[in-house]
């Protein structure tokens, strides 16, 4: 695999921030009661991750090692503020729905983890690509989890799409089935934990097979641990 391919493979499947590193679970579990909420938070996180990886990579040679963590946090906090203000301006309703979880992106360990483990050691291009792929991996899990919970809970998909892309999108809401009563557990926090657990189980079940297809046989797999850093 080329380095770029490897980064995408690591970000989206092998070292997925949500399913394997299990980072940033708090917003992941809290806001994914609909696809659109998940998508909104996923995109916000993706932007922050991309921006922080680029910034950290650019300044990596001027940061004294001792204070690198505060510097990373400052960078991430500024980027989150930017995203927060942007969402406040353009997607106000979604901004209100996601509430505290937008400012809380600062504390998302997936972001500072990538800054520390990858961006501070690699060139700007690679770091940006890594941010994009890790963000995509996180976004995908958010959307899948949101879809399952929304489908089970209220029988719809893409409800509230107008919050994200304007009033025209109201027609996007797809009523898959109309339950007599909503399956509330799927929408409540316990449902998030249960479905997240099932998603991880599903990933583990098909892990070997998918790795075989993507990586191929020539590369012998070592004993792998779930880990935050690429090097061990």
């Amino acid at each position, binding site marked *: 695999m080329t380095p770029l391919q490897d980064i995408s493979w690591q970000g989206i499947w092998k070292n997925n921030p949500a399913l394997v590193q299990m980072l940033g679970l708090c917003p992941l579990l809290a806001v994914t009661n609909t696809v659109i909420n998940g998508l909104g938070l996923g995109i916000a996180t993706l932007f922050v991750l991309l921006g922080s990886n680029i910034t950290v990579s650019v300044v990596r040679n001027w940061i004294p090692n001792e204070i690198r963590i505060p510097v990373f946090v400052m960078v991430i906090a500024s980027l989150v503020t930017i995203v927060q203000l942007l969402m406040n301006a353009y997607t106000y309703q979604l901004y209100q729905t996601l509430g505290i979880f937008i400012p809380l992106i600062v504390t998302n360990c997936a972001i500072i983890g990538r800054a520390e483990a990858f961006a501070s050691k690699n060139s700007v291009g690679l770091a940006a690509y890594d941010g994009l792929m890790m963000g995509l991996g996180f976004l995908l899990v958010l959307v899948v989890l949101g879809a399952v919970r929304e489908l089970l809970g209220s029988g719809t998909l893409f409800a509230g799409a107008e919050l994200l892309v304007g009033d025209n999108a109201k027609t996007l809401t797809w009523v898959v089935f109309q339950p007599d009563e*909503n399956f*509330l*557990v799927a929408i*409540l926090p316990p449902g998030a934990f249960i479905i997240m657990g099932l998603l991880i189980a599903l990933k583990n079940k098909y892990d070997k097979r998918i790795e075989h297809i993507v990586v191929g046989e020539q590369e012998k797999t070592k004993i792998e641990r779930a880990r935050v850093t690429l090097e061990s």
Partner: protein
Amino acid sequence: MSFRVASSPHGHIQRKTSNVMLAVALACLPGIATQVWYFGFGVLIQLVLAISAAMLAEAICIRQRERNALLTLKDNSALLTGLLLGLSLPPLAPWWIAIIGSVFAIVLVKQVYGGLGQNLFNPAMAGYVVLLVSFPLSMTLWLPPLQLVEYQLTFTDTIMLIFTGYSETGYSLAQLRVDLDGFTMATPLDTVKTALTNQQTYSEILTGKVFSDGYGIAWFPVNLAYLVGGLWLVQQKIISWRIPTAFLVTLFTLSFITHIISPDGSASAMLHVFSGASMFGAFFILTDPVSASTTAKGKIIFGILAAVLVYLIRNWGGYPDAVAFAVLLANMCVPLIDYYTKPRTYGHVSG
């Protein structure tokens, strides 16, 4: 003379798991009969639905885990889970309620943890709680006892209500809830809870029709029937006397004291012990050998803990009855209780 050395455990009662499960199911029979007498055939239909869904889910899970499904089904544990869940459901709840509950109980509460003997929580009650939290409306629609309803339901009516939501003559469940005098009826505990929040006194509440026989019509005999079945289980040494006794004594004492202090603002101790799921919970739910405490002292602590939780939730919580929640919360404490109540090994000094 030859001394055959058998490996432990050196139990004297050669009971198999399947026989124990079956005996517990048999001990439910008086309770089931009383519930059918007061609430109609709906009870039986819910039982059939819950048991078949539970056994099917168990079989599929076991097949997925590449074990022998027939052998596992024979231990009757899925049957008992389905039975206990089916008995807790409102008799005329829609059919999918029983199915969702049983599948959740078996797949996510039991098999995901590793099957029989591995689960942390009581499967039937976890399934019940998921249903209660998810479908609060359907799960609280108890019809008044048959003796008090205005429209007598036939067997076809019951089946149609469960599967379509309307009786043969087109009445919905909400309409059927109305009693002879045109009042909507609820269970005794629910009635007490609602009336107390509406500033009525307990003596006023007792004049209501639900309490025409003293401790809540239908519910008092149902609880008595479960008490009889439970005592038989204790006599057969299938369940330990410690958990039910600790549970019932604590619940009685706490509500007795409360009722003495504020006779108008709380239900009597007898009502607490003989209402809702008290007896059913004490003898059939709390005594689950897997998820309950296993040490002698631990069992007593476990029973007391569950009773305190039931008492707290019934009096100050959001739900009229609380056995399911109390059981799950007490289940969580079981590892801790068992750790601190380990019996002293013979020959060891204390500690």
